[in-house]
């Protein structure tokens, strides 16, 4: 295979390296008979070429611009093992339900293989600088989306992965056999430190495992970060003593510089917090640094995916959240917001399950219904706990448990704090709804069908649950998802 590749791309050397501009296809970036090596990184792109650009050339251009090429021939290629370093587009498929006769112009799935030698070990920044570096602004394409990646085991093993992981987090918290429960403190902005800590205490005391800072709570005029940390830890410790259970609050240490983030994280540690939080917007390198810090300090690391919707939501252009999930598992976070399927934020149920599988399984099989295009061996890398947060409530407990199983944090912000009888009642309603549903599932009952009756039965002895069900019984966010798999012909129903 290697022999024929090198023969083909260098066979006509003198014309290949003649000064001037030539098609990417002819420069060796399109190799339909290439068989990817087990050590290659493979990227799957969704390509919408400009009119008049054929699919092979568009795929070759993406391969070129995300690896060694520039717009013109350069003789200095000949000083390198350029055949090896060139990314190879080796397959293009029409995307189902696009092109003539459909509402969407023709799109293509392009498979591109990259030699492992192109990448520095243990650096998401380096990986992304190649794969999504220049190519997304490339003019011959109308749009481009990175759909999935196959990461070779040799590359996976250069990353340290989650500092804690699902198994160790549960052992530290002493919580098994059910999803964890959380809530984001509301209102997001404006509470003083003391009032903020009150909300945290009430939620934890009522039965939640975690409370959480929101993504944009840092250190604002109404509440400086030290004040928040001190009051939140009072709330955590009080709630622990009142319940005999381990509790936590995700202290958001996101700040303008690494130095400041380390300072805040160190203070959280000094106060005895078991978990700190960062936002995706701090960047891949900062995330990897905080992961190292968390590993050194026995701290669970929670990641809020702030900003991802700007590039993950539209199907034609950007990056699938599946790929972000893979990168974040490598980079090493313990929690990541990965969608609810039933709440207020974007997410087709099957696609969201695909993200969860990427985060939680030791080994992913190809699963086109869930948008998973590649088999992926995670090589023992720890598992990331997905977080379902945004517009969910106790009345959906059977759906959430059925979709996501036990290893997930279910976060009911409004669905806790907005309870008519108060925050503790809201928390209790969620915890009772969860435990009765887990119990029923384990007893072999069909919770998809019997879920509402199971909740009503528990509501007969639990007034807070009764009130929660009455308040939110008709709330659903039933909109069609934009990010759906292109394997099944229609989006799965939003429930």
């Amino acid at each position, binding site marked *: 295979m290697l022999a024929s590749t090198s023969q083909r791309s260098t066979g006509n050397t003198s014309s290949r390296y003649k000064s001037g501009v030539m098609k990417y296809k002819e420069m060796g970036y399109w190799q339909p008979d290439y068989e990817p090596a087990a050590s290659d990184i493979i990227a799957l792109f969704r390509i919408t070429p400009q009119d008049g650009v054929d699919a092979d050339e568009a795929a070759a251009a993406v391969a070129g611009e995300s690896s060694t090429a520039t717009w013109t021939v350069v003789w200095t290629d000949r000083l390198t093992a350029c055949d090896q370093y060139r990314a190879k587009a080796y397959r293009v498929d029409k995307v189902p339900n696009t092109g003539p006769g459909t509402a969407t112009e023709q799109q293509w799935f392009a498979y591109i293989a990259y030699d492992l030698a192109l990448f520095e070990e243990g650096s998401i920044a380096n990986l992304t600088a190649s794969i999504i570096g220049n190519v997304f602004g490339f003019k011959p394409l109308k749009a481009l989306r990175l759909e999935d990646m196959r990461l070779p085991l040799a590359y996976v093993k250069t990353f340290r992965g989650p500092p804690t992981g699902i198994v160790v987090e549960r052992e530290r918290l002493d919580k098994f*056999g059910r999803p964890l429960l959380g809530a984001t403190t509301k209102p997001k902005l404006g509470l003083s430190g003391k009032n903020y800590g009150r909300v945290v205490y009430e939620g934890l005391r009522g039965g939640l495992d975690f409370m959480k800072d929101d993504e944009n709570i840092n250190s604002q005029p109404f509440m400086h970060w030290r004040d928040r940390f001190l009051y939140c830890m*009072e709330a955590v*410790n009080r709630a622990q003593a*009142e319940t*005999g*259970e381990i509790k936590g609050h995700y202290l958001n240490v996101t700040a303008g510089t690494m130095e400041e983030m380390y300072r805040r994280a160190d203070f959280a540690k000094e106060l005895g917090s078991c978990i700190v939080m960062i936002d995706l917007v701090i960047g891949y390198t900062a995330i990897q640094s905080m992961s190292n810090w968390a590993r050194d300090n026995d701290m669970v690391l929670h990641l809020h995916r702030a900003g991802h919707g700007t590039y993950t939501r539209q199907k034609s252009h950007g990056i699938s959240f599946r790929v972000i999930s893979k990168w974040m598992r490598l980079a090493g976070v313990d929690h990541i917001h990965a969608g609810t399927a039933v709440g207020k934020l974007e997410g087709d149920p099957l696609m969201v399950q695909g993200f969860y599988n990427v985060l939680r399984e030791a080994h992913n099989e190809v699963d086109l219904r869930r948008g998973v295009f590649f088999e992926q061996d995670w090589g023992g890398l720890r598992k990331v706990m997905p977080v379902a947060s945004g517009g969910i409530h106790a009345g959906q407990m059977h759906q959430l448990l059925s979709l996501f199983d036990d290893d997930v944090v279910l976060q009911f912000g409004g669905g806790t704090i907005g309870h008519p009888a108060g925050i503790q009642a809201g928390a209790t309603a969620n915890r*009772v709804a969860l435990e009765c549903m887990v119990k029923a599932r384990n*007893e*072999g009952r069909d919770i998809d069908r019997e879920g509402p009756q199971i909740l009503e039965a528990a509501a007969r002895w639990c007034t807070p649950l009764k009130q929660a069900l009455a308040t939110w019984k008709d709330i659903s966010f039933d909109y069609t998802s934009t990010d759906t798999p292109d394997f099944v012909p229609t989006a799965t129903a939003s429930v």
Partner: protein
Amino acid sequence: MRVTQGTFSFLPELSDQEIHAQCEYAIRRGWALAVEYTDDPHPRNSYWEMWGLPMFDLKDGAGALLEINDCRKTFPSHYIKVNAFDATQGFETVRMSFIVNRPPEEPGFMLRRQEGAGRTIRYTTHAYATNKPAGERY
């Protein structure tokens, strides 16, 4: 107060029949059941006393219930929990853990605060029950 450790602490106490159903679930999943008891309910008490070894080869939930009831007879006022252990690679941990016995009175915990510099506080959770020696607590 009520210690709310464990998978089902917010529900009414499980009947023997309900405990049996949960044990059957664990056995179906291939998990090994184990019974543990303690009179120190501190949330960071990782090592409750083992009531025998995990029941690796158990095929029937009734066997687990027998052990649970023997443990209850011996320690009627202790906390007793049932753990289900999963030896699958990538887990190798407890997958379910629920309390099946608790003391009639749960005195709860004292929160001690040691004030430090810069408004920091060092917290200690102390179980009132552990003021008495082991064996005389409940």
